[in-house]
């Protein structure tokens, strides 16, 4: 009986060892399969010249593949397909501007955040420097957005004026009806890029709420997650993360946005 028991345990251990995890699978196959956006610049989009998917997310995916010593295979995805691709095992990782939420974390694991986009403000130069001033200002927001809700909740003395669309809010800012408008940072940058007198405006370098973007990892793949997290921290330490950021949001790009978040700031 005792012998049988030992045998049973031994067979369990053996099967455990024989069942390699995803990290081993990737190394064995020699390919890292990553889901990325193909139409969400500058995170992941098809480069019109090379016809290849490029972007900030893709740069990170390349570094991860290099670190594992395997080839990178990109799989285009859209917001709705990200979780199914990962849970069905069709890809090994998701790098597609993937906001970390509790709801999603029930179905998959996230790496530490490697990017953050937050609610920011656009104002005439010199009028807004810190969040403390918001309580005394009239601020334009888009109707029906979380920006509107967050602003009203956290800055009850600010006068929130909600408009149908960002261009209306911006016109109100231009005319002086509001002193600032609020939106997600990357969206404000995109808006500002098309303004003729953009030198009169600025996006003050602070956020009032943040969305964190992480790498989607299959649930329970601890070793794979460790490699991803270590690699991300190394990238920050070596300055490579800042270089990737600057390539897409740096001062010389179409949509300059100051880098407020560093990898490792938030676990």
């Amino acid at each position, binding site marked *: 009986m005792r012998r049988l028991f030992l045998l049973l345990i031994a067979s369990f251990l053996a099967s455990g060892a024989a069942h390699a995890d995803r990290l081993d699978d990737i190394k064995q196959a020699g390919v890292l399969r990553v889901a990325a956006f193909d139409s969400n610049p500058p995170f992941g989009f098809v480069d019109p010249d090379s016809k290849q998917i490029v972007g900030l997310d893709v740069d990170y995916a390349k570094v991860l593949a290099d670190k594992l010593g395997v080839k990178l295979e990109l799989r285009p995805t859209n917001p709705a397909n990200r979780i199914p691709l990962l849970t069905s095992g069709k890809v090994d990782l998701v790098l597609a501007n993937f906001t970390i939420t509790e709801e999603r974390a029930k179905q998959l694991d996230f790496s530490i955040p490697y990017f953050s986009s937050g609610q920011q403000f656009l104002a005439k130069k010199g009028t807004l420097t810190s969040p403390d001033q918001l309580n005394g200002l*009239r601020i*334009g927001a888009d*109707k*029906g*957005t979380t920006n*509107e*809700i967050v602003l009203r909740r956290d800055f009850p003395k600010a*006068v929130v*004026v*909600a*408009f*149908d669309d960002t261009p*209306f809010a911006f*016109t*109100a800012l*231009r*005319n*002086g*009806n*509001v*002193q600032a408008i609020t939106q997600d940072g990357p969206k404000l940058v995109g808006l500002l890029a098309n303004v003729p007198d953009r030198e009169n405006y600025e996006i003050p370098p602070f956020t009032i709420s943040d969305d964190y973007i992480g790498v989607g990892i299959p649930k329970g793949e601890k070793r794979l997650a460790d490699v991803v997290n270590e690699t991300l921290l190394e990238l920050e330490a070596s300055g490579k993360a800042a270089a990737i950021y600057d390539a897409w949001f740096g001062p010389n790009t179409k949509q300059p946005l100051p880098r407020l978040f560093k990898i490792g700031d938030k676990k």
Partner: protein
Amino acid sequence: MGVFGEPMALRYLIWLLEGFAVTLLLSAAVSVAATGLGIAVCGLKLSGRRPLVILADTYVSIIRNTPLLVQLFFWYFGASALMPSGLMTWLNTPHVLDAVLVSLHWPAFETIAGFFGLTLYAGAYIAEEFRAGINGVDPAQRESAMALGLRPALVFWLVVLPQAVRIAWLPVVGQYLNTIKNTSLTMAIGLAELSYASRQVETETFLTFQAFGIATILYVAAVAVTEAAGHAVARSGRFAWATQRP
């Protein structure tokens, strides 16, 4: 779960009631101002002086032939871009006048633009209602009064005007009702009236049916009460006396 589904938290009901108060105050202010404007424009039209008539006709046709929403955008976004920036800054900063008991708040620019746009709009229609009222008085009334030897001013004041007011009264009340409903368009320029408040509640609570359902009930109530009051005035003794036909 009542008829309206999930009940709404008190703070959201308060938002709706605050929006309703703004709708009522704005409607009342616009109705009063537009009535004055309508009388003045009607006076210009009947003055017989060509430049004044052309001025009044141009105003009425521009206002009546363009959508109200576009007019509101014009006053809020367009006109404010043309104003000197010093004036805009003054208009957009809160001004509080501390009187003995109450402190008067200078309204926000959204309110000023909304009030201005709605008044110009309703004024054009009310001017036409008054003109129709005056034209609707039987010419024999005027002729008889003249035959009695009354001066033209007295003919107008004592004979034509009372009858014209009676003819015009219910159509003018109809314009007040339109004004109540038209205030909802000012949500597009960020004026926090009832429609704006109901959308804001909907955004925060996702209680779509409740938010817009309550707003609908409040609009219906405001319109019904105003209409009933208008009819009551039309039936009242004084009004009837003033407009009694001989």
